[in-house]
């Protein structure tokens, strides 16, 4: 495992940089909540509207919350939405892509048309309708809703690769040996798609997080929970930008920007790996 992993990263600076950024953020998200006192994230617990100081490293917001504490508690929540939504949409997308690519025919047409149609409709618009009909939004519900609109990229990518893998020699041989149906898909086809599945997962997480912070910025996020998107929403809601309170909206934007850049670099790096393995362009 060790040498294989080293080989994966060697000569792939994008993957190294992406994995480093995401790893550092994940570490911060894991340790952050242990190092801060959650009381300081409650409304009115500290004097409001203070710029960064020794007592409050990232200042305090207009509702009397310590921004550093809010960041420490919000980052894991946002990452959780992204990961859970990414996993759900990956599972749905890979299943549909495999089935469509392997069976072909009517199933393929239905899956392809469905993903084309879903990709065209502006995701945020549909999410707005769903979210507007939900009584109270939570982080978990948010992940499920967002996943419903980000499975298409994985489905399309896996379908295309299944189509090409299906015709390879070793799959044909396995088929001639009497291996059929599900076993053929899971034993012969699926393992060879792993690099693509990994790349699709990164893209799915990115899309899910994009949709999430979009909903949150419109005010449809979990109002009573702390996430990076909700922090930006409250900052915008209370006019933090106009009032020059950069320490309030700056940190969540920086954190989100790092997450998205990390995801982009990782996905670019994984792209190189899978192209090398399967001999793509």
């Amino acid at each position, binding site marked *: 495992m060790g040498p294989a992993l080293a080989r994966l990263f060697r000569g792939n600076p994008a993957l190294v940089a992406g994995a480093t950024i995401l790893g550092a953020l994940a570490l911060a998200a894991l340790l952050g909540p242990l190092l801060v006192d959650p009381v300081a994230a409650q409304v009115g617990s500290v004097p409001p509207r203070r710029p960064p100081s020794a007592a409050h490293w990232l200042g305090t917001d207009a509702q009397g919350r310590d921004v550093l504490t809010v960041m420490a508690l919000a980052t894991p929540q946002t990452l959780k939405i992204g990961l859970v939504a990414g996993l759900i949409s990956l599972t749905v997308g890979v299943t549909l892509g495999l089935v469509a690519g392997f069976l072909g025919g009517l199933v393929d047409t239905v899956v392809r*048309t469905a993903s*084309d*149609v879903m*990709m*065209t*409709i*502006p*995701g*945020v*618009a*549909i999410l*707005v*309708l*769903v979210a*507007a*009909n*939900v*009584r109270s939004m939570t982080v978990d519900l948010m992940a499920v809703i967002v996943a419903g609109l980000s499975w298409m990229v994985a489905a399309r990518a896996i379908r295309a690769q299944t189509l090409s893998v299906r015709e390879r020699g070793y799959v044909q041989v396995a088929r001639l040996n009497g291996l059929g149906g599900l076993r053929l898909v899971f034993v012969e086809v699926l393992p060879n798609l792993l690099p693509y599945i990994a790349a699709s997962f990164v893209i799915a997480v990115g899309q899910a997080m*994009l949709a999430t*912070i*979009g909903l949150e*910025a*419109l*005010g*449809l996020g979990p109002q009573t929970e702390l996430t990076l998107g909700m922090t*930006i929403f409250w900052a*915008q809601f209370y006019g933090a*930008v*106009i009032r*020059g309170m*950069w320490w309030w*909206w700056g940190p969540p*934007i920086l954190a*989100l*920007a790092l997450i*998205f*850049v990390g*995801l*982009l670099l990782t996905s670019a790096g994984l792209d190189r790996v899978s192209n090398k393995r399967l001999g793509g*362009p």
Partner: protein
Amino acid sequence: MYLDYVIRRFGIMVLIFALAVTINFALPRLSPGDPVEQQLSQLMASSGGQVGDVRAMVESYRQRFGLDQPVWRQYLDYWAMVLSLDLGFSLANYPERVGESIAGAMPWTLGLLGMATLISFAAGTLLGGLLAWPRAPRWLGWFAAPFMVLSAIPYFLIGVILLFLGAIVYRIFPAGGGFPFELTPRADWATVSGILWHATLPALSIVLAQIGAWAIGMRGMLVSVLGEDHIVLAEAKGLTQRRIFLWYAVRNALLPQLTKLALTLGHLVSGAILVEVIFSYPGMGYRLYQAIQSKDYFVVQGIVLILSLSIAVTMFILDLLYPLIDPRITNRRN
């Protein structure tokens, strides 16, 4: 062959529209409780009961929904309503119709999104093409790197930073709105420059975020075009580098970029909506935000419907244009 293709594309457009209408129809009915009463009581709670004659509104809406009818009948009626472009009344500004409200906001969004997309598409495609061109200067790579990073970041986050820098720290641009308050719109230079002045920062946030994405796509495409035989032939013929670049390489790499434009249209619109919110720009996105804040459900529904419809139509138009640029497309089955 072309007819086949057109019919298939038209079918996709109809499907998208049907799906959007069906979702619009189904969602409020799937959620528990009476949709009309729920929406109106939420509205009452948030505005302290000052919404006009509520009982008359409940009655009129229940009739509109036809909640005593069987579901298939309600569904058909809903379609009839949508097709006659009757989207009902705004709950928050009662006598105003949803259609009027959207019509007032639409030109702003179209202008902002259209301009920003055109500029970034042209600039990004050119940049990406030059990046793949072996004879391009070295500094170009360094110049392009920041755009690649920005392309990963959602537009409206860039918008917040631009708003802070351009309107608060350096007070160059207005902090919000689409038009100077003190002016009445007329067809003169003051009006046009006022509109452009207000649109600069929102447009810039979209452009900065998009250039990198277009450049990445174009670079990849041009690299593979440059390996083809017709480029070698053009060089052997002794054509100028400029001519080879523009007419032999870029032209052939352009089509996938246009396809990508159609595919990312939904993404573009979603992004632009949020940029409008940050800049209080009076387009559909800001109207949507206001409607969500004031729980004006019918406006929310109407905007979602119009957005989906206009994207479906735009896709269809783009699809009709492709074969004129590249005749191979009608022959491709997949």
